[in-house]
Structure formats: C-alpha cells, structure tokens
C-alpha cells in the first residue's frame, strides 16, 4: 500500500496487516487463542519468500558449490555468492570478500577470538567487554584470555542499563587489544553508542568487534562509516533460517589472519608435506556450508529491503513506544533496562511473581515471551533479579497484540492476588 507520509515526506509506510499475510506462522492459534509472537529477540519468523527460497533450492538446483562444472553446481554457486553480495550491501561493506558466512553470531565471535585473538594477544594484554553482553560475547573472550594469560576488563553499566562511557575510557590503555561490545543488548534493549566506542578504542589501536545479533534486524548499518574491525549477526534473527550468520571483517585485516577451521574449501593445495590456504573469505569457510541457509538469508535481506529499512524502523519505534507506555501503566511492573536509547526489547519483572509463572500464564493467553536469564546472567546479577520476562517486537507485531500482552499481565496479577 502506498501513500505519502506527511510528517516524514517518505513515500511508503509499512502496512502491518499486509505484512502479516507474508508470514504464514502468524495466523495460528495457541491454547485456543490467536498466537501473539513476542519472542523475536530469541528468533524471528520467516516470510513466505524465505521459506520458498529453501524449498526451491532443494527442489530445483541443490548442488555443492564452488568447483562443479555442471549446470546445477554453477546455479547454486551463483545464488550463494549473490547472497554474499546482498549481505555486503546490507552492511555497506566495500567488498563482498569482506563477508564471511558462519553458522551464527556465536560462531562469528569464536572465529575472531581464535584467529585475531590468538594471533595478537600476549600475556598481560587486555580484552574489553561490557557488563550487558550475551554469554556468546563473553565466554569466547574468557577462554582466549585464559589461554593467553590476558585480562578481561568489563565496562560497567548504570541502573538504567547504559554503558558508563567515562569508565570505558579509563579502562582503555596500551595493552587493550580487543573491544567487544553489543550493538543492542538482548536483555535490556539498550542501543549502545558504538561509533564513540569504536573511535575511542582506535586511539589505542584496539580492534573492535560489534555483536550485531539484535542490532542488524532493527538498525540501518554502515560498517565503513562505523569503521569497526568486525561486525557479526545471525540469519535467524534477521527473518532468515537458523544455521547461518554473517561475519564482516575489514579486508586487509582478514588477509592477515590465520585460518579458523581446517578442511576442504579453505585450502589452495594440500599435500602431506605442505598445505597452502585459500584467499579471503574462503579461507574462513571450511567444508560444505549451509548453502540453502545462505541463499535464504539473501531472500530475507531482499524482503527487508523491499519493505524499506527506514519504514521498518519507523513502525517498530512507534510500536515500541506504545508497548513501553502500556506496560508502564502497571504499578506492580518494573521494566529492566530503561536507557534513553532503546529498541524492540522490553524486559520486565512483576512484584513477587517469578518470570516462569508469568510466562506460563501468558502462554495460556497465546502470548509468547521469553523468561529466564536470556544468556545474560551477569545482567541478571547486576539488576539483582533471578530472571526477567522479555517481550521483543518485530515489524509484524501490532498494537492489538500489545494490548493482549497487557491483558495477559493483568491476568497474571489476578492469579497471584
């Protein structure tokens, strides 16, 4: 549906009813009620075009890629490499060889820790992470620091869930080799000022990795403008399939790195005396990849581009404001993570009611939220809660669904009155 948005002068606004038609899973009932899917931070739903891309691949041109001379193999290779270019354009990377296909954000971070980290860290060096990180952006660095006798430093956060930037500045020194920080916190919803973080890290020649698992689906990205060394995101949170993710790395930097996993594809020649490694990005892509997954991620990027990233953002921002306001009306409800700059994620606790019980009762109303520590136990400890309930918004959620969430919370309060 087209129309002129008077306030922004933008040609298209998102029509959520139309968009929802594209997502077959949304039209089902759960426990006799319409599904209200608010667990998008855990994984997003897939549009028909993404599902079809997978089916079409396996029905018509499934073949192993990169060195076949037959027709199907060439077709599969083309589609896969086209998806790489789509990811390049999404991130505004300067070359498609700067895009590495991985399994997930978690694998991307492990890759960087084990290549860049292993190569550059010396005993006494330091790696900086933040207090709001997901376990996947903590544990690989802990493991690396242990291996290399390096120190892990943590940027603290305030009670609103914002990074204390003065403390961050104080943490940086000549021994800092890596700064690894999330773009948007999966537990708190905080959007971090990563441009600033990157700029300050560069004063000390530290490399910066941005965990974009939540960032990529909700923000417009430009890795050249950001100037980060690495940016990682997951396909399945970007309306694509599970089992595929993207690691962006600066070309010259990737060229200098040793390989990650060894095996086929990442080599140029193999003999028992000597093996030589392939060029970037193939050097970091050992074995047969998730070909269907990569191609389908390309379809997801196409879908998002067709809707328009700015239209998505406008719609989500408005819905998020409504959801925050609606939930804030409950005096027994406390939102965990109240940064000035937030997106999509509403973590909350209800007075004297455990998240698990909240989640079970909401489920009975057809509402899917996540309850627990969200792979961010340090965040739970920081806010002194055992767990939170987390609702996370995507562009196919509606105001009516937020109302159902609110009604569900009312029901929880009644059960425990």
């Amino acid at each position: 549906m087209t129309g002129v948005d008077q306030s922004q002068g933008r040609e298209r606004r998102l029509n959520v009813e139309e968009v929802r038609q594209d997502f077959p899973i949304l039209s089902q009932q759960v426990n006799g009620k319409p599904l209200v899917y608010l667990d998008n931070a855990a994984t997003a739903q897939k549009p028909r075009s993404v599902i079809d891309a997978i089916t079409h691949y396996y029905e018509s041109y499934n073949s192993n890629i990169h060195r076949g001379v037959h027709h199907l193999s060439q077709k599969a290779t083309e589609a896969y490499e086209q998806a790489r270019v789509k990811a390049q354009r999404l991130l505004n990377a300067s070359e498609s060889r700067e895009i590495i296909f991985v399994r997930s954000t978690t694998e991307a971070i492990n890759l960087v820790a084990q290549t860049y980290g292993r190569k550059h860290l010396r005993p006494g060096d330091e790696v900086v992470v933040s207090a709001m990180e997901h376990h996947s952006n903590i544990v690989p660095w802990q493991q690396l620091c242990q291996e290399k006798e390096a120190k892990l430093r943590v940027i603290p956060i305030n009670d609103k869930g914002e990074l204390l930037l003065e403390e961050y500045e104080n943490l940086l020194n000549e021994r800092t080799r890596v700064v690894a920080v999330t773009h948007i916190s999966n537990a708190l919803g905080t959007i971090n000022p990563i441009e600033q973080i990157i700029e300050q890290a560069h004063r000390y020649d530290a490399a910066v990795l941005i965990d974009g698992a939540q960032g990529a689906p909700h923000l417009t990205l430009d890795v050249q403008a950001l100037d980060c060394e690495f940016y990682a995101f997951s396909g399945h949170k970007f309306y694509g399939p599970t089992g595929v993710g993207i690691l962006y790395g600066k070309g010259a930097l990737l060229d200098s790195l040793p390989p990650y996993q060894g095996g086929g594809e990442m080599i140029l020649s193999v003999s028992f005396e000597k093996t030589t490694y392939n060029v970037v990005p193939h050097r970091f892509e050992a074995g047969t990849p998730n070909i269907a997954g990569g191609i389908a991620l390309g379809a997801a990027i196409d879908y998002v581009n067709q809707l328009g990233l700015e239209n998505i953002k406008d719609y989500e921002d408005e819905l998020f404001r409504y959801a925050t306001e609606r939930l804030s009306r409950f005096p027994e409800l406390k939102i965990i993570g109240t940064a000035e700059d937030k997106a999509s994620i509403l973590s909350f606790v209800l007075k004297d009611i455990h998240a698990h019980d909240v989640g079970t009762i909401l489920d009975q109303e057809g509402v899917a939220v996540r309850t627990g520590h969200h792979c961010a136990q340090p965040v739970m400890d920081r806010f002194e809660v055992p767990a939170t309930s987390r609702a996370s918004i995507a562009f196919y959620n509606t105001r009516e669904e937020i109302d159902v969430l609110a009604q569900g919370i009312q029901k929880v309060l009644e059960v425990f009155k």
Partner: protein
Amino acid sequence: MSFLKDLYQEVILDHSKSPRNFSELSDANRTADGYNPLCGDKVTVFLKLKDDVVEDVSFTGAGCAISTASASLMTQSVKGKTLLEAKELFRRFQDLVTSGTAEGAELGELEAFLGVSQFPVRVKCATLVWHTMQAALKNGEESVSTE
C-alpha cells in the same frame, strides 16, 4: 482458563505465597543445594535425621510459584517419615508430575501438583526440591542441578 487452574491451584498458590518451614535449620545434620539454571530457581534443603527418621526439615531459596509450593509441601509431607518412606514419596511424586498418575497413592495435598503433568516445561520446577532433598539424605552435603 480452567487449564491454568489445573496448575495454579488454591493449594499451590497458598503455599507459594506463605511457604511452610521456610527457614534454616540450626541443628540440621544433612543439607544440599539445588539450582535450576534455566530459570534461576535456587533452593537449599535442611534435614535433621535421627535413627533413619526425618525429625525435622526446612528449606530456603528463591524461585517460581511451583518450586516454592513444592518445597513447602515437600517439607510437610516428609517430616516424621523414615528414609525409605521419603524415597517412596519422591518416586510417587515424580510419577504424578511427569505422567499424571496418582495410583491411589496417598499423596495427600501433594496431589495438587497433578496439573504439572500438563505443563512439561514446569516439571523441573516441581521436582527440583525433591531431588535436592534426596541428595541431602544420601550424602550430607552436595549440590544438585536440574541439568
């Protein structure tokens, strides 16, 4: 909604809001910690055993309504029982919450947990404190996890 009432029964809600035997036991001779890493439920069980009989039992911890109510009712059921009786009670409770069978089994108020069998995700909430109690009886000092 009646489906939900199967889980959040009066008895369970009552015990979760006002748990019985919710304190440390100063003269305990058996203790164990239990932890459910999936949701953060934590419980410590204190037992005072005398000649194979559970003379006294209590618990501390923080967790969801199901785990708290289960702990409260466990302490009530197990007090005064022999080791063997406590073990048997655990087995029958597990059957109750996993497969929904009560077997005419003299579970008393514990039957309130029959509904848990329809919410498989919550079974570990109900059984955590029982596993912890068993660990306390067996070894004296041990940590138990649901994983």
